[in-house]
């Protein structure tokens, strides 16, 4: 066992008094130090359109509309980027995006066990509501871990409630109410530590022992399912505070990872103490783990990578910086808005993703913005917005076509793993080239976006091209692009309908990586 002090608390910096600009400058300083040591010239700031698109995707989970792009480009306010970030965080879609992002991390089982999808709306609703209240992240974590569960002599706790009511119990239910799974999953996500390798055996390189693993599981040992399957109602024997070590005779008692013993709490569930310990300001891992997640969501690479593998053998790229942001986050009482504002004000977040000098490609230097894949939700919402799928006459009995399309996109992208590196599979390429959604969007008869542009600007080819660029890539074409495309569309294949030709351009835009990625 390595004590906290060696792993975490080296040089605790002074707390920031809630000043997001001060934190942003501290980020700039630390990132610049490393760039300078490595002699790497960072990329210049992104232009307005690139920044608007990125911030919109990161904060509300969707690209901006053509009108929003135009307005942002025309805005002469020097502080418009920070104001944009504030505006996006205040947007109701931000809470929804936050809920989806964290749902994917907290209930990953939904992707493999389709029946668990019934838990999704209520769980996202819970996260969304908490985010709308700007509840501290510690509050959210305590909610998840200490959700009330009836005692055996009471009516068991229903897991599947009104689908659209906030339902924090979904976290425990999705782990099959299994103490070991609940413990390892929460420790991995909220503390950035991987204990599960110690479930079966002590690992030679990890400090965690098998006993320690099971001591964590012991906090959840009282939870029992009444019946079978993931939706079985739950009860909890609150004074059960030990668990059998991997089906052996040996019983392991509750004990915190820093070897402190929980206070005897009588009939209160040991989960309450576990949650308090986990989110306590004196727990050096909690703030760091959340900060590191949010940082990697915004910049593509964590300060520790993998984000959930903080260990002595895997030090952060910028240890001081991680400490400083974590301290400020703690001081802010785990205020997610504060954290987002500060990171989005940093130079690192505002750089272009273009390579402008050599050596800018090492992700952990943050010399240029990483290119990131869109999440399935980000992509589905952006695509629907860009093309305005709108075939009211094509309604399949009782189904909302838009929702059906969304689902199909989600299925397609979900099948394709990695959340960090955008990787295109052959399956995806085929779907975007030949699939039904893009096909309908790019045919005049079914493509609402095409129809609108041709109605509004019937004889202005340049304007049509501009509108398609704004709607999809969230920018205007360069003059060279506009000229070359206009020439192609005017001269080639004159026998094609003009709607078809504009559809060809829309097809190319939707298939381009610039549309598919968050860059």
């Amino acid at each position: 066992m390595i004590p906290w002090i060696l792993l975490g608390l080296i040089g605790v910096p002074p707390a920031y008094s809630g000043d997001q600009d001060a934190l942003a400058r501290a980020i700039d300083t630390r990132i610049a130090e490393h760039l300078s040591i490595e002699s790497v010239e960072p990329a210049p700031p992104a232009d307005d359109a690139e920044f608007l698109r990125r911030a919109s995707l990161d904060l509300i989970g969707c690209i901006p509309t053509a009108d929003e792009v135009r307005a942002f480009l025309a805005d002469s306010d020097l502080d418009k980027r920070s104001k944009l970030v504030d505006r996006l965080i205040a947007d109701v879609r931000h809470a929804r995006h936050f809920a989806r992002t964290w749902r994917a991390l907290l209930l990953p089982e939904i992707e493999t066990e389709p029946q668990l999808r019934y838990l999704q709306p209520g769980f996202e609703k819970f996260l969304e509501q908490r985010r709308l209240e700007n509840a501290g992240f510690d509050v959210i974590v305590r909610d998840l871990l200490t959700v009330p569960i009836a005692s055996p002599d009471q009516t068991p706790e229903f897991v599947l409630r009104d689908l659209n009511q906030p339902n924090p119990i979904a976290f425990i239910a999705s782990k099959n109410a299994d103490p070991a799974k609940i413990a390892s999953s929460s420790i991995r996500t909220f503390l950035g530590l991987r204990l599960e390798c110690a479930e079966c055996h002590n690992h030679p390189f990890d400090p965690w022992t098998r006993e320690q693993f099971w001591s964590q599981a012991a906090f959840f040992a009282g939870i029992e399912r009444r019946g079978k399957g993931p939706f079985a109602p739950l009860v909890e024997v609150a004074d059960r505070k030990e668990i059998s070590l991997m089906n052996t005779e040996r019983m392991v008692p509750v004990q915190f990872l820093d070897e402190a013993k929980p206070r005897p709490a009588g009939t209160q569930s040991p989960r309450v103490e576990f949650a308090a310990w986990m989110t306590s300001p004196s727990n050096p891992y909690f703030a760091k783990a959340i900060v590191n997640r949010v940082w990697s969501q915004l910049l593509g690479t964590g300060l520790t990578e993998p984000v959930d593998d903080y260990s002595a053998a895997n030090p952060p790229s910028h240890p001081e910086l991680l400490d400083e942001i974590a301290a400020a986050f703690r001081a802010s009482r785990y205020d997610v808005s504060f954290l987002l504002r500060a990171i989005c004000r940093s130079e690192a977040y505002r750089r272009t993703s273009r390579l402008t000098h050599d050596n800018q490609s090492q992700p952990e230097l943050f010399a240029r913005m990483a290119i990131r894949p869109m999440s399935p939700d980000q992509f589905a919402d952006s695509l629907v917005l860009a093309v305005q799928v709108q075939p009211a006459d094509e309604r399949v009995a009782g189904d909302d076509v838009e929702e059906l399309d969304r689902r199909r996109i989600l299925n397609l992208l979900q099948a394709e793993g990695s959340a960090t590196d955008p990787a295109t599979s052959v399956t995806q390429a085929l779907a975007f080239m030949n699939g039904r959604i893009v096909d309908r969007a790019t045919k005049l008869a079914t493509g609402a976006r095409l129809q609108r542009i041709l109605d509004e600007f019937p004889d202005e080819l340049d304007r049509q091209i501009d509108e398609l660029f704004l709607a999809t890539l969230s920018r205007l074409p360069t003059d060279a692009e506009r000229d070359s495309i206009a020439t192609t569309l005017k001269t080639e294949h004159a026998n094609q309908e003009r709607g078809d030709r504009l559809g060809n351009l829309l097809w190319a835009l939707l298939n381009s990586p610039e549309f598919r990625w968050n860059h």
Partner: protein
Amino acid sequence: MFTQRDSMLPRRLWLGSTAALAFGASLRCWMPAVAAAVEGSPRPKRSCILLWMNGGPSQTDTFDLKPDHANGGPFRPIETRTPGIQFSEHLPEIAKWSEHLAVVRSMSTKEGDHGRARDNLRTGYFPQASIQFPVLGSLVAKEAGEQTGDLPNYVSVFSRGLFSPGMPPGGFLGPSYAPLVVGRESDDQMAGPPLSVENLAVARGISPEQVDERLRLLSALEQPFLAARPGAAAESHREAYRKANRLMSPAAAKAFSLDHEPADVRDRYGRGQFGQGCLLARRLVERNVPFVEVSLGGWDTHEANFPRVQSLCGTLDTAWSALMRDLSERGLLETTLVVWMGEFGRTPVINPRQGRDHYPKAWSVVLGGGGIRGGQVVGRTDASGLVVDDRQVSTPDLLATIFVALGIDPRKQNMSNVARPIRLADPDAKPIAEILTESPA
């Protein structure tokens, strides 16, 4: 220009030609980087068809019967073509191919959870230090080198549930070695017939001229964007679109179309998904695809084991024997390794629900065809079937055996995502020499 294009002209050709006319300099991005990839080891000698029994098949009711023990259950053994080797009475057709099959009755592995055991058997490794271990199909696809024709190196048929969401397909080898999935993942009826590659054909009503113009617009658009953002993502995008275009060629599309098979051949495999999947596997190895897996689910028989296993054996016996016959008649048996396995076996002890539960401690796999000395049984379990008595075989041993049978050195290394070289099979692996036609190097 190509105004009077022959519609049967392979798509790849006209794609290449028109791209060359329009953007001489950009041609490179659509064409394979052959020179860079061909160097290195020779292609494997053989293709592999993996029959993946998802859920964990019962060894006691298939290839390691215990008729004289209470654990044996109701199924009787029958003689095979090989004297002294017996299979279950519900595998009568595959019993006729025993001379080409080696049964390993002494698999002993460590993992009894479906997901973790599946990943262990399919990658050869246990999770460690965030290494994204690639599955067998990806490893073989990589050893096969740059895809030579229009078809991919790794095709996975009905692979629903075979890949963990956290595990990128292709593992640390990257999406180039991810499988092409055949058989739709969703239950969505609009996605096309069940055994097909989704979205393989150009959308209805789109003329070749339009396709042509679209691809040229795309190429012009993405060129500056990707050039300014070099790296794995850009490469992956270019490669996926290039391969997708090749896959859309008439010749490639034909490989996936079972309509070209006579009705009696299709019947012989069984008209269910698994049977037709095995027929597709044969069509693909005929066209030199190095690795095809076809999965058959339903083996997780915690309850009512016997009627369910009997029914699954019917499906399996029909399809697998038809596959062996076709491979043999077409001279492909020597160049095709066929592997039958799941993630673990099942408890010899029958539970109160007439089911059998997960059992990794003593179970069976079967290898056959190319590279394998058939007509053999390796290893032995005791009378109860509970423990391996002789010749214990581990997951790495099995994977190493498969590599050697394919003509691949299992000690070869790939660079992993944590910048540590990883061998194809664990360094401790010992190939099962007695069933291999060629000794490991």
